[in-house]
């Protein structure tokens, strides 16, 4: 049907959407799988990056960002960028407070070296009984 409006919408096929759906299912299952292993700090990074990729998939395909004008993409991006600004700027205050300790402890001549070997002061945690949580 020759629609005279210049917005000739390319209508993707059903298989296209179902394919994305399956990909999302696989990714969700993967997230749960990875989360069951104890990777310490890595757990969060993996969980968030997989969730981010899933979100990107939904936005790119389901929300038609693929052939959306760049302005719409900019609107989507601005939301994410300003959220990142908020997280980073508030996070830097808490990071500075916990890591750098405010002046009363700054500049003390004590060897506050985070990764200095703990001078036999504490046995490696493994030696102690298994940290039963």
């Amino acid at each position: 049907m020759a629609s005279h409006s210049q917005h000739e919408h390319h209508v993707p096929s059903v298989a296209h959407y179902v394919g994305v759906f399956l990909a999302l299912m696989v990714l969700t299952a993967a997230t749960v799988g990875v989360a069951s292993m104890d990777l310490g700090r890595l757990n969060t990074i993996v969980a968030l990056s997989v969730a981010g990729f899933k979100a990107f998939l939904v936005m790119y395909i389901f929300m038609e960002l693929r052939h959306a004008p760049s302005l719409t993409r900019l609107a989507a991006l601005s939301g994410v960028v300003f959220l990142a600004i908020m997280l980073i700027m508030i996070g830097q205050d808490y990071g500075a407070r916990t890591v750098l300790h405010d002046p009363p402890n700054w500049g003390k001549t004590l060897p506050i070296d985070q990764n200095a070997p703990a001078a036999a002061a504490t046995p490696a945690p493994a030696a102690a009984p298994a940290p039963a949580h």
Partner: protein
Amino acid sequence: MSATAIPRVHTPPPPDPPVRPAKHYINATSGLASWLLTVDHKRITILYLISITIFFAIGGFFAMLVRLELITPQGDLMTAETYNRSFSMHGIAMVFFFLIPSIPATLGNFLVPIMCGARDLAFPKINLLSWYCFIVGAVFALATAFMGGVDTGWTFYTPYSSTYANGAVLTAILGAFFAGFSSILTGLNFIVTIHKMRAPGLTWFRMPLFLWAMYATSIIQILGTPVVAITLILVGLERGLGFGFFDPKLGGDPILMQHLFWFYSHPAVYVMILPPLGVMSELTAAFCRRRVYGYHFVALSSVAIAVISFIVWGHHLFTSGQSVYAGMVFSVLTFLVGIPSAIKVFNWMATMFKASISFEAPMIYAFGFIGLFTIGGVTGLFLATLGLDIHMHDTYFVVAHFHYIMVGSAIFSYMGGLHYWWPKITGKLYNDTLGCISAVLIFLGFNATFFPQFILGYMGMPRRYHAYPAEFQFLNICSSLGATLLAVGYVLPAIYFTWSLFKGKDAGPNPFKAKGLEWEIPSPPPTENFTKVPVVNSEPYDYAPGAGH
């Protein structure tokens, strides 16, 4: 006479008086329903104009209560409780219900579609929804007032607002929430209209600077307001349901509430100052009869202010237990955000160089704006300086600074814009000399009110004090005297504007002989603004065609 001889040209006989169009948007339809259910952006402007003027009066009333109380050192006019509720209602009424919607909802609503060459905003029904959100918020705010008011200040800091304050905090929070939602909807409308509905030929750098300012303001309204909405909801939940978001006993941190609150509330003060900067560019161009100098820089400085304003809010927390290093980061960024404002002032002055300046009322307001905005701006530098902010934080120096910006600059330019576009909105001319008198009166009254507060501030008089040590009394009396003069200054325009509605002469399409799409349509304009979609094929403000950059 000056060295450059101004050519003496025989002035042609005055043209016959302009005739008022028979059919325009005010008398297109009549009846209360046609006003309350209108989707015409011009009628919604009138609805907003009336509602925010009412809140300006309410806020002003509470301001007078505060100033009367502060004449005497010991709090004797009212109890501490009433005083706290007065300054809180003053803050909430002025910030959420007058300053945030002041120019975007009135002049912005009226002019953005016309300056874009469009028949109406992109989403007229959402525009009406925005006014109804404002009204719902207003009902909550008035309910708060009648339920005894709230004494947390307009900042709602926890843990006071969530656990210790008694008063209608939840209703005040709902009021602010709905006012914020109305501001979001206005911003959304402007962004889509400016992007998608500009007339053919109206490229970005042919847009009037007022549109640039409204675009920048909308960015803040869209990306900032929701954060204060969620913060107020969290405070409401902590107070209502005992969800201890910021409760130290659960490991919560009241400073996080301040972070989230000021993440919006500092960009909010740029929502209050960016539209006035846009109006200022229009006034300078029209009354110097010349294109604004450095048009590109002034246009982009609006957007720069809008973006940088999101990373500077930490200067409200210098003494609040925020880390010293975060304080330094926020301090240097706060200095950075001051630069675009300075660029604007310098460019306006450069526009005046060798211009032909006429002194109608709007231009007097413009000159007043430049003076007060400069003082407001430089005192902002004091508070951005870490070393001084320790001493000056939460003192009257801060009160004076933000009043110089909000009242001195924002309301001054709002008044200037109102005087400039009143003939276009109502089709009537007001008495120009009275306009100039009111500008001078407000300028003098304002300085008399708030300049002494700078001195009080450095002396260390804290904010929100119901009673204060005796040595501060003289300066407080000067401030209260100035406040009365200021009140008179604000009442005067209300009088001659209303008078002009009934007795004013008809203003033709272009009373000030200015350039701009809004001056090409009759005043008051027809409902559909343009009978034929205008085609723009020249630079903005092309008083001297061919000059260009």
